[in-house]
């Protein structure tokens, strides 16, 4: 496997959990987190890989090495921020692959290719779908 250079914006639970798995899989990783407390927490696990700064600021992205990454993951809790990160990553820094988190399901329609998004995932929708599927299975059982 060819390891990838990956930039994760947002070191919350989701960012840290994904980061952990990607490192275990052998990829090169950098985090950007604007909240000092979250950044410090992430440093406990990821050390020097964590940069404290606003990922919507092009200068911070440059400092985090955006020019040499293949993938960027915009995983902040703010949909506006994730959209701006995608826009900058795709149109300004020409990152090959842009993955974004969608926080509010109502905002899903904004995460399109022309805004620089290659893949968007909405944890709320995914979990709701999962729950619905589980309930469907139970319903099927009780009917049998």
């Amino acid at each position, binding site marked *: 496997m060819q390891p990838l250079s990956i930039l994760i914006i947002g070191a919350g639970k989701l960012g840290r959990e994904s980061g952990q798995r990607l490192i275990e899989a052998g990829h090169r990783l950098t985090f950007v987190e604007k909240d000092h407390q979250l950044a410090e927490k992430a440093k406990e696990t990821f050390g020097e890989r964590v940069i404290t700064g606003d990922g919507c600021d092009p200068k911070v992205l440059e400092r985090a090495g955006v020019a040499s990454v293949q993938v960027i993951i915009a995983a902040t809790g703010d949909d*506006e921020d994730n*959209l701006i990160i995608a826009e900058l990553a795709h149109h300004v820094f020409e990152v090959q692959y842009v993955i974004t988190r969608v926080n509010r399901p109502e905002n899903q329609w904004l995460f399109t290719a022309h*805004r620089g998004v290659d893949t968007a995932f909405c944890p709320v929708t995914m979990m709701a779908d999962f729950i619905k599927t589980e309930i469907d299975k139970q319903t099927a059982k009780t009917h049998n």
Partner: protein
Amino acid sequence: MHIIIIGCGRVGARIASLLSSSGNSVVVIDKNPEAFERLEPSYKGKKIEGIGFDRKVLMEAGIDHADALAAVTNGDNSNVVVASIAAQDFHVPRVVARINDPVRAEIFPKLGITTVSSTLWTSGRIFEYLVSPELHNVYTVGSAGVQLYEFEVQNVLVDRNVRDLSVANEIRVVAITREGIGFIPVLGSVFKRRDRVLVAVDTRSIDKLKSMLGLSS
């Protein structure tokens, strides 16, 4: 015109009130309903409580037939997102986003989003005023090429002709305000003491204008 303003802070409320009083159909959107108290009592437009990039809110505001939209909340990122929705998804002919961060204010125009940077604009005007208080920049045509300056006639120009201050393709007197009345001068018009003069200058010729006015550059 049907115009949508996102954000009813000081800037948004002022724009919405001005547009409404000049006879436009205006809709102002803000997530905080108390913000609408900033609108002038004469404001006749619509007020919508909600988030500016919600499709439902934008539809209610009539974005599908809007002639213009200004995103002027204090969040740079939401302003850019709303502006891009208006321009790209709803093809609103005139869209502008307010951006405080000077770096982003220069990047997003390259991606097709017109921005006004309060930080760049305000610091530019204050800088001008501090270094040359006699000459005020009042307008920039396009992003830079031509500037409109205003000044008050001082000794050097009194009783001289507009022709004396005209340089083809570089400097042109556009208007004069005399005792509160504005008029468009001809080359033979004569400057009087205390006239306020509006002059268009090629950006490269500002030093030339200053030396003609007897100001140090």
